[in-house]
């Protein structure tokens, strides 16, 4: 199954990874080859089979609804590349 250069660019956009034209060509070939090996899955009969998301039969793991200390704002911001007024700073998203 061939994954075209356009599809690679689409996926890279979804994943927010900038690619060079050489990257696109390489990933197109490599991802196509890897996905080819997955083709046998299509032939497996999974009619009526429930999907497994997780190996343990756990559900709704919750703690008691009591107030506990949360991370101090200064700690959360400690590794930020840029910060301002207690917020993470990024380039303007809106014009």
């Amino acid at each position, binding site marked *: 199954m061939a*994954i075209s250069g356009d*599809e*690679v660019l*689409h*996926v*890279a956009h*979804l*994943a*927010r*990874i*900038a*690619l060079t034209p050489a990257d696109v060509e390489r*990933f197109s070939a*490599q*991802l196509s*080859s*890897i*996905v080819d*090996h*997955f083709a*046998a*899955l*299509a032939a*497996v009969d*999974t009619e009526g*089979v*429930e*999907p*497994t*998301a*997780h*190996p*343990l039969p*756990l559900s709704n*793991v919750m*703690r008691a609804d009591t107030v506990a200390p949360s991370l101090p704002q200064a700690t*959360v911001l400690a*590794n*930020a*590349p*840029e910060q301002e007024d207690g917020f*993470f700073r*990024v*380039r*303007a*998203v809106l014009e």
Partner: protein
Amino acid sequence: MVGKANMDEFAMGSSTEHSAFGPTHNPWDTSLVPGGSSGGSAAAVSAGECLLALGSDTGGSIRQPAALCGNVGFDPTYGRVSRFGIIAFGSSLDQVGPLARDVEDAATLLDCIAGHDPRDSTSNPEPMPDLRHYLHRDISGLRIGIPTEYTQGMEPAVRDSFENAIGIFAALGCTIDRGLSLPSSEHALAVYYIIAPSEASANLARYDGVKYGFSDRTGATMWDNMEQTRARGFGEEVKRRIMLGTYALSAGYYDAFYLKAQKVRTLINAEFEEAFKKCDIILTPTTPGPAFPLGAKLNDPYAMYLNDIYTLPASVAGLPAISVPSGLTPEGLPIGLQLIGNFNDEGRIIQTAHAFERANGMANELPEV
């Protein structure tokens, strides 16, 4: 504490060559890889640089390097060891476990680190038995299953060592069932390389250069900065897997890849459940071959993935599995034996692996460094 060990970037790799710090070499032959992703841990133990090391195992990253470096590596039942503070890769697969020179050391370290942790929401609630209690025990009458399907790519030296190991278990009084069938296990590689990259693509979305870590701030817009941060900050294999996972989760492919893989995962798990009604331990080689040369599989991602073909099924099912040294190739390279147990049955794995280790007499064999 001796230090932090080298590993494949974000635990993605089977050779420790995908490390930003450069590759780790195998102490048994420095022209070879140590396996991966926890290759630095395995190499440090077998080079005698430390007594014990920790590794993480998502699809074989403790067991495979342990096999290639001649030490013991134990991937416990899903959720046994807290992942609090660890960078998530494949959240339904990630495990922490010990690498050690022998089974007793591995059991002792796992005893120390296992247990429920409320800070890890998928922590295993079952109490862990005292594993040291299972050392020095008889294993006669134990039922060992040999799956007929685990033969792909197996090299002759691995085959010989595996047959020798089966003979040792028979001599120890175990019953050997060579007819065990786990037909869906042949799909474990495809299932794993869809599910793990899909989970990774979501987990690694947090590396956007805004909150922490590497950040490229040279672009004109926030999106430019994010795309450049991720292009420059992630290595080749990590980008490949994020792309693969994003593709498998994207509109139009979700049902055919991600959902299909989750359904086949159900089939793999069900076959293991049936198998453990008939046997106590499932025996396979850990890897199809011994350590391979540096660079040999670096440009062929799928060939690299195939090195995990025997370790992936237990990972997909969340079952505990250990790798213990079983012998050496004619060239003197270590070969690993994998023992897979039922959920929360680490005690039986330790009991069986320790009995094998004593009978086989290969524990604590270290290379000349």
